[in-house]
């Protein structure tokens, strides 16, 4: 009886996939220009920016989640803005989780892409320029294809990291089924409530799914996984 999964559990699976997908897509949009800038900039504050981007790597997720709870709440700076725009407040909403996830996984998306851009070097871009390719053209036809392994790593890491996210969601989510109750929190709740059957089932399913996704991605990218020099 204990191992029967509730509809809430199935919703948790769907919600987790949704959160990971939305976060990964947003991160690609945000991380790419950021990584490009970090790879090519020679400004004095580049080091500072790199450190800021890497911050979520060392911050305990519960700390990040807690301060986001304060910041996005009605008493915080961000909360004040969202309230003024008539959007309510972000904690306890899916959108709030997306914000937390994007911040939390930012370095996992930026760093692989940045490394990929850096490893291209200036030469291919200069050559393309001599062949009269404009800046956007150079980016799309030269840089992006060469940086493909970096993008793949970024996608995998951002997706997997969000699926496994716990501390941020715990602080920010409010455990609302269908809205913010993702798999990691659902499993935790089952363990706490001593519903070990459901916990084993969900956790096992999660491990299996993650493994298959990662395996599939690595196999599918077999050819382009090696950076050709």
């Amino acid at each position, binding site marked *: 009886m204990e191992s029967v999964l509730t509809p809430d559990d199935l919703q948790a699976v769907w919600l987790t996939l949704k959160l990971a997908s939305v976060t990964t897509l947003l991160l690609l949009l945000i991380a790419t220009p950021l990584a490009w800038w970090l790879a090519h900039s020679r400004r004095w504050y580049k080091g500072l920016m790199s450190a800021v981007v890497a911050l979520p790597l060392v911050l305990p997720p519960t700390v990040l989640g807690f301060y986001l709870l304060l910041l996005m*709440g009605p008493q915080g700076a961000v909360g004040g803005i969202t309230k003024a725009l008539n959007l309510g407040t972000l*904690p306890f909403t899916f959108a709030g989780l997306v914000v937390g996830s994007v911040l939390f996984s930012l370095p996992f998306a930026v760093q692989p892409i940045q490394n990929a851009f850096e490893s291209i070097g200036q030469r291919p871009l200069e050559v393309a320029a001599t062949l009269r390719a404009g800046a956007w053209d150079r980016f799309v036809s030269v840089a992006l294809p060469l940086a493909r392994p970096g993008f793949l790593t970024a996608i995998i890491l951002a997706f997997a990291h969000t699926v496994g996210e716990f501390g941020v969601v*715990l602080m920010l989510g*409010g*455990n609302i089924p269908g809205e913010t109750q993702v798999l990691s929190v659902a499993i935790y*709740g089952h363990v*706490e*409530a001593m519903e070990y059957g459901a916990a084993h089932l969900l956790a096992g399913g999660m491990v299996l799914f993650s493994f298959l996704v990662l395996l599939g991605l690595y196999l599918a990218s077999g050819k382009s996984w090696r950076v050709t020099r």
Partner: protein
Amino acid sequence: MNISVLRGRVVAVLMSFGLMSAPACAGEVRAAVASNFSAPMERIVALFQQESGHTVKVSLGSSGKFYTQIRGGAPFDVFLGADEAIPKRLEQEGLAVGGSRIVYAQGRLVLWSAQPGFVDAKGAVLYKDGYSKLAIADPRLAPYGMAAKETLEKMTVWNALQRKLVKGENITQTWQFVATENAELGFVALSQIMRDGKVTEGSYWLVPPGMHKPIRQGAVLLSGAKDQAATKAFLAFLKSEKAATVMRGFGYELP
């Protein structure tokens, strides 16, 4: 965590330094304590350490988590829970010493808001639509959450309020949601908002005892206790008049 908890902790640490020169029979008690009891535990530990010369190391958390950890061999000597069910289970499973179980306090549930004047003295605010989020502790995990659910069911609003519910993992997180005003109001333990017999901020409704099953909080001596003498002394101190006075000041009742 509020500053008085932090201050109390610092005082307890400093006091235990002072007690290090105490007689050789000074023992150590490692206590796993349900989060709702954190504030009174602070004061009780200070008094106990002063009187007995033993030291007490306190770990706060949710009862469910402690149960899992104790089953996994966690190094605690005594468990102060938020209900009677988990201490009973520990006894039945041989993880606690038979016959050592006591009920050390009876908790009171309150509906609280950080905003003054928000919650009326009868809880009628629940029926109106003036709020978007109501925080409770997860009923599966926390007895205060279960009591909140029972209260809402008695008021016949449990189903209607599902969309507005935000569940905290334990009663402390529930309090946090309300204190940061992310939830306009919520069901917390009276001890979390009462200091020295007075509620210091916000507005509240003291839920009448008839609305839910009594929240009898049980404590038990664990089988893995290293220092049985010191731990038994602590359990005895919990039932003393000194401890009772502290607990009353935080809104607990004595069974």
